[in-house]
């Protein structure tokens, strides 16, 4: 039922990490040395590695009350995955762990070869440049043009102006908004605003796209538009994880679906082939 592979020595791995790198290399086996090094420097990162791996991850905000409990999972490159569950099941927390907005209390998370629990200093920004995130409430700047809103993701890495302009134009064309690039978000419909947010997430060509209830505020027709955009990102090689409680979407697309309940992973249904 569960296709992930939880590696047994991981609980020992934490002890190794605490006792230092030398011990890890000498005593805990080459695999763990490589894992640590990957978490620390990304030096041993291999291309065929899964972009997202979670091993026995737990997280609580209030002592004794776990938002995420002992979750292990792996996502492959270019995979499109739904994350479902009722409100409060832990979907948002799981996404936040993946873009390092939160840190796990227990377990290991490797995102693009980086160990989330050990990210320091510039580690978080440099990870986020490779992970696009989309929210239910869009998070757009109301007083800036659509173009500016998308370009902000390129500004932070100092993309030259001309290059930035053409990339923004291309991604806006992908989401069908190139003609509205000078408008402010308030002049756009909800669906259009979400397309701007997706354009902002995709303009850096991220390896992972995380979406938290991206269609939560949208009509069913618009929801399908948004889903199609994210599916096409997956076909271009981006790993896409979409948290939603909209069962109709899940049933329509029949992609791999992970279900959380009370912070635990209770179901992991592989893709069955369907629309898209």
């Amino acid at each position, binding site marked *: 039922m569960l296709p992930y592979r939880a590696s047994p020595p991981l609980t020992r791995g934490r002890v190794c990490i605490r006792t230092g790198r030398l011990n890890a290399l000498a005593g805990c086996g080459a695999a763990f040395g490589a894992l640590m090094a990957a978490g620390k420097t990304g030096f041993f990162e291999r291309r065929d590695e899964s972009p997202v791996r979670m091993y026995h991850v737990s997280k609580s905000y209030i002592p004794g009350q776990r938002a995420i409990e002992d979750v292990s999972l792996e996502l492959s490159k270019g995979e499109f995955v739904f994350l479902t569950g009722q409100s409060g099941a832990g979907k948002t927390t799981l996404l936040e762990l993946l873009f390092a907005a939160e840190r796990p209390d227990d377990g290991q998370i490797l995102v693009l070869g980086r160990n989330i629990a050990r990210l320091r200093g510039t580690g978080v920004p440099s990870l986020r440049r490779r992970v696009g*995130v989309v929210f239910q409430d869009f*998070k*757009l*700047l109301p007083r800036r043009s659509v173009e500016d809103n998308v370009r*902000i993701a390129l500004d932070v890495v*100092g993309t*030259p102006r001309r290059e930035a302009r053409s990339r923004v134009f291309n991604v806006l064309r992908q989401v069908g908004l190139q003609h509205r690039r000078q408008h402010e978000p308030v002049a756009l419909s909800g669906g259009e605003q979400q397309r701007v947010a997706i354009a902002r997430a995709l303009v850096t060509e991220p390896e992972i796209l995380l979406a938290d209830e991206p269609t939560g505020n949208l009509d069913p027709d618009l929801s399908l538009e948004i889903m199609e955009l994210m599916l096409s990102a997956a076909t271009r090689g981006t790993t896409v994880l979409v948290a939603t409680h909209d069962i109709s979407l899940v049933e329509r697309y029949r992609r791999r679906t992970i279900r959380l309940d009370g912070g635990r992973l209770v179901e992991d249904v592989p893709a069955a082939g369907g629309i898209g």
Partner: protein
Amino acid sequence: MNRVVVIILTLFRSGIIGLRSASGTALISAATIGIALFLVGAFALAIVNMEGVQERFSQKLSVTAYLENDVDDESALQIAERVATVEGVEQVAVVGRDEALERFRRMAGGASLLEGLEENPLPASLEITLVDLSRTPEGLGILAGALDGLPGIGQVADGREWIDGYARVTSLVRVSGLAIGTILSLATLLIVANTIRLGIYAREDELEILALVGASRTFVRTPFLIEGTLQGILGGVWSAVILWLAYLLLMPQLEYGLTFLLGNAQPRFFHGGELLVLIASGAVLGLLGSLASLLGWRR
């Protein structure tokens, strides 16, 4: 274009956008810096002028030692030779009684005051010039000590008391200026910090989005430092302009009082370098204020 250059330009643009979007509070903050610097600048202007007078006075400084009435011309020459050997003395000139009378007559404009005199009442004197390094209160002290023991020398007029007094007034002005400047600068820092903090709150959504798309800490914070520094520069320029206007408008009215403080010296305004220091002080105030604001801010 190099990515670093692009980032720096982006940060500057972002700082200027921040300044414009908070123009009301930013202008008040800049005006506060301007007022603080205006007061500090006014004190500094008084001090540079007074120091100028002191320096000019010391340059011209000479000591007059009056000789007693029974000293004849020959003895006067001998005393002059001995005085010339004192440490720090450059030159000694003997002014005979007749010459003294002649000088007095010229100074008084040939006044009838002297007409009734049967006898020259003026004593002969030695005019002693000191070398540059000894034109200080200490140098004058050494000379006074040496003259004290010499026979035939009466009263010594060395202007030391006047210089001492003037130096004391200058240092009082300087200390008051420093105290007022420090207090005002601290108050200004708080106002700038508060303004920047308001700007941070106003742009919290933008900062959250920046963090989400992978902006570094420096990228998020630098625009606020630029904003604070620009406010400071603006305040500095305003203070310089207002000082200059005040100087032009008030100088004619103050001339009488200034003659007392400055003697015959012509008052002067700051020169270019000093104005730059004033404006740079504004920039530093703005930068420190925004730094203070960021230090207390946890994203």
